[in-house]
């Protein structure tokens, strides 16, 4: 059952610009790890490295799924998804002119997810009853909160073992941010996921995180083994929260 993700010494960038420098992160099996940092510090690039959308110039990214180790660097995105790694991208990236159901069905494109499609669709509709009501609506015509539900549900349709979530709170009202974060914890527990979540909203993210990393200018500036450690850290209080 155990699935974990380990990044060691990952360096990556676009052209001559290094966005990530020697980043090492461990996401233990069954844990929720928060990747904290303000805009432009490399959170999204790190997620894209794991998904094979950006190729690191150095370092290794290893996913251990059911006791089998897979090196992800050098694999295509399709191959990484096929291993059971799901991704909720920043900005949600739904297909605006397809219906909610069509969006969800596309989430199950991965071959291993297809036999479980009916069960997973039921699960998504039970978790997000609003989506059942809006099943035939075009995704582009929904509110931001509903779209975030579709994005989460679409990733779940691929029956992932490891789930990467990039900035789930972006563009949402504060009450919806809280609800979305709660939902992620609920999903993690019910589906026994291993979660890596990038988030700017520090207070919301550490409510559900078992561990956290603070990333500043492409380097890991602080590593907290628990929510209290993150909360009480001098560096975070000073630079991140501005206290």
């Amino acid at each position, binding site marked *: 059952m155990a699935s974990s993700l380990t990044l060691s010494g990952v360096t990556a960038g676009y052209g001559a610009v290094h966005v990530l420098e020697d980043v090492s992160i461990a996401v233990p099996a069954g844990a929720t790890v928060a990747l904290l940092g303000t805009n432009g510090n490399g959170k999204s690039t790190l997620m894209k490295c794991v998904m094979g959308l950006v190729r690191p110039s150095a370092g290794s990214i290893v996913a251990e799924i059911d006791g089998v180790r897979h090196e992800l660097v050098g694999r295509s995105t399709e191959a990484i998804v096929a291993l059971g790694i799901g991704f909720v991208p920043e900005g949600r990236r739904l297909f605006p*002119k397809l219906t909610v159901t069509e969006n969800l*069905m596309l989430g199950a494109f991965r071959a291993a997810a297809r036999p479980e499609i009916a069960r997973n669709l039921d699960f998504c509709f039970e978790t997000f009853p609003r989506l059942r009501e809006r099943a035939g609506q075009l995704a582009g015509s929904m509110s931001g909160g509903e779209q975030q539900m579709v994005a989460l549900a679409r990733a779940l349709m691929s029956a992932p073992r490891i789930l990467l979530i990039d900035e789930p709170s972006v563009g949402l009202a504060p009450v919806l941010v809280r609800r979305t974060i709660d939902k992620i914890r609920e999903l993690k527990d019910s589906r026994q996921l291993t979660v890596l979540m990038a988030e700017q909203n520090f207070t919301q993210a550490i409510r559900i995180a078992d561990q956290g990393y603070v990333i500043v200018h492409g380097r890991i500036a602080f590593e907290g083994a628990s929510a209290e450690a993150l909360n009480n850290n001098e560096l975070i209080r000073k630079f991140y929260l501005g206290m």
Partner: protein
Amino acid sequence: MDLSLGLFGNAIVSGLLLGGFYAAVTIGISISFGMLDIANIAHPAFIVLGSYGAWYANSRFGVDPLIASVVLMPAFYLLGAGIYQLYYHAFERRGDASLRGLAFFFGLLFITEVGLILVFGVDYRLVRAPYIGPSLYLGALEFPLRLLVPFLASLAMVGLLWLYLSRSFTGRAILAVAQDAEALRILGADPVRIKRIAFALSIATTSLAGAILIVIQPVEPSIGRDYIGRVFAIAVLGGLGSFAGTVVAAILLGIMESLTATFYGPSWSPAIAFGFLLLALAVKPSGMFGR
């Protein structure tokens, strides 16, 4: 009174059946232009190629043209896959797709035409089939089998394609790929592969559409040009990427052209048809069934 009513009814019927033919020639554009944003203006040239495939099988081996075209479909599919691969590597991958891509397809249009002229000459060709000639009668209404059989074949093709697109995983990915190719990638579908399959399907339809064309009228290599405007007009009028819209727009255009030709003369029909297109787009720019 009776005479003009009969004339009117028959104009409607032949327009409806003509619409079936228009649906067959447009459905490929509905995929390539409507779903993939590829302005394949060479599409009608491939339809003429399909006509020649059907003609060759018919005149040489005596095979029914429509059946021959279905047998030839895999070859057209592979041709389409090859063309997309070339288009992708030369243009789309570099982001040069719009204007240079148009020049590419313009070139393909001429190469196909000239190739057909070199091989088969410029003479008009026609096919033989048992349904060319006889008609069914329903009261005063005449249903020429030459139009009715292609109409049914066209609807069957459109229906099967729609089932494939709406029910299969690859089909749904085809519907999504133009909206966000990167989002498709993170769901585990290679967008280039998906587009290749879709474009190959769009070219595969030209095999049957070509056979339908040559069943309806004699064909010479450059006859496809007559249809470039109409094919894009129908696709836009129906709503890009909508199959139901394409069929309805094709039948509307067929009926309008037929009515105009019957009561005012054939030379007026393009003016009426394109006038209607402009009017419809002014009222609803996304087309009749556009999402």
